[in-house]
């Protein structure tokens, strides 16, 4: 394991170098916020296939990847559209095999989290009491019963899940990938520890001194990071605390339009294949929308003195 050569990349290069056909990708780890939608769309544009998606709940991002036919397998606790409910592309893939069949490995948020945490801890499994008595854990490829070696009641063992790559969106990072993030965390840290490669997408690449002014805010150390991408607005329409509001309309619009295959295709054509990159996506949204979505207010964290 080593601290690598220069890591700064364009998003297209970061995806090209770090996401291969057949890879297991963890994303959407902070649940509804900080979803790397720019990366999701770039993966679709680059035509990846046979991906495994790993995450807790996955607000619309997984559905978009599934609808585009990039996905062979989903390992997740919830696939849909938080504002709208069902993920129609997910439903079509599971119910009708359209555009292709997918395998679904159901989890709960905690069990998929423990699977990532086990890998993050360098363990083959973690024990838990969650899920006992339900159907998720029955005949599950990654969950087995274990005895408590100290004589207590039996538990379940959740097998470690090691993504090939985790893709996360954070507020700021330095050129080495040391990343500051705040607000929702979800499973972001666990996934970055667990993954073979981590792609950090940030609102701002900042000077090394900014990161080192607050080492407790550095939740992802750079030596776990393979590529750093500065892509402001790269999580839209998801929110980024202190940078971007949630853009509600695209979630509801997508939910409505993706109800049919044709609707999905139209969405894909307009919002993914119709724009070459995130900068073009933001231009397409337009300045008034961006001005409305950008956080202008300031509510700073209380000062913390690190002077020695």
């Amino acid at each position, binding site marked *: 394991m080593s601290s690598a050569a220069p890591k700064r990349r364009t998003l297209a290069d970061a995806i090209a170098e770090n996401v291969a056909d057949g890879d297991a990708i963890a994303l959407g780890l902070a649940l509804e916020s900080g979803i790397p939608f720019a990366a999701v769309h770039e993966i679709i544009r680059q035509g990846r296939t046979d991906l495994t998606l790993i995450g807790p*709940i996955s607000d619309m991002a997984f559905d978009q990847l599934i609808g585009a036919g990039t996905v062979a397998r989903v390992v997740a606790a919830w696939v849909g559209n938080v504002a709208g409910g069902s993920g129609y592309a997910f439903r079509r893939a599971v119910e009708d095999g359209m555009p292709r069949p997918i395998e679904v490995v159901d989890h709960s948020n905690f069990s998929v989290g423990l699977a990532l945490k086990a890998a993050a801890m360098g363990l083959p499994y973690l024990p838990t009491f*969650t899920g006992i008595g*339900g159907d*998720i854990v029955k005949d599950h490829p990654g969950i087995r019963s274990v005895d408590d070696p100290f004589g207590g009641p039996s538990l379940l063992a959740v097998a470690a899940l090691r993504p090939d790559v985790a893709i996360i969106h954070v507020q700021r990072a330095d050129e080495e990938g040391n990343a500051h993030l705040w607000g929702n965390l979800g499973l972001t840290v666990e996934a970055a520890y667990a993954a073979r490669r981590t792609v950090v997408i940030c609102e701002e690449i900042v000077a090394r001194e900014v990161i080192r002014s607050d080492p407790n805010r550095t939740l992802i150390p750079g030596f776990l990071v393979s590529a750093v991408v500065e892509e402001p607005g790269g999580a839209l329409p998801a929110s980024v605390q202190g940078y971007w*509001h949630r853009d509600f309309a695209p979630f509801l619009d997508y939910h409505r339009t993706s109800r049919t295959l044709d609707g999905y295709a139209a969405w894909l054509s307009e919002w993914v294949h119709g724009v070459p990159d995130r900068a073009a996506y933001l231009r397409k949204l337009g300045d008034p929308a961006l001005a409305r979505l950008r956080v202008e207010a300031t509510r700073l964290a209380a000062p913390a003195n690190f002077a020695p």
Partner: protein
Amino acid sequence: MTSMYTSRELMVVAAAREIRDREIVFVGMRLPLLGFGLAKATHAPHAVGLFENGVIRDRPAESFIYTMGDPPNIAGAVACLGLIEVMSLLQQGRVDVGFLGGAEIDPEGNLNTTRTYPDGRLVRLPGSGGAGDIASLAQRTVLIMEHEPRRFREHVAYITSPGHYPGRRRGGPATLITTLGVFDLRGGRFGVKTLHPGVPVDTLRLSTGFALEVEADVPTTPPPSPAELAYIRQADPQGFWTGDTRKAG
């Protein structure tokens, strides 16, 4: 005194009444979130709310939120931990009550949000999210459902969130709040506690897909007070979650 309210407003009030002061509550979105805020504003000012993304709040968000990850739910939070941390507190038994919904329920309080087979054809639902964890690990759970015969089934097609089962280590469903009434699910029974105002016993029976024992003189769910309604309408001014047809109370 009469006032107009929706059945969802009544459900919010019923949810709030399930929260005791000083309790640690695993809050969901939608009706339970409003119920948590209402409880804090009335009889449970010291209750603390946990969200599965890691957020802990002791006051409702300052503005309306559509998802638990919305920035107003972070600003002013007590803590933003990780998912594993809040789930660990849940697994420890430190969470008194959690709220759950479902597409299907059976008499043991098992909930299905994974897949159904209406007319024999598979319909894939989104899945557990954190619901299976809350169902497994909270000290007690409160379930909230639309009361329709296709949702109340002798056997659910898939147990996403386990209800009562032999050997359960802790917790299980305590109360079910539906569009028709409030039910006591403690100890694996399925007893009618109250029927909402104006709901006939027959409607309840016809809307429940399994046999239900209903006593002759079931009490009526106390309707929302004006103060309760005022809170709900300030918290959900557009009726995004609570706005269905309003009816006389």
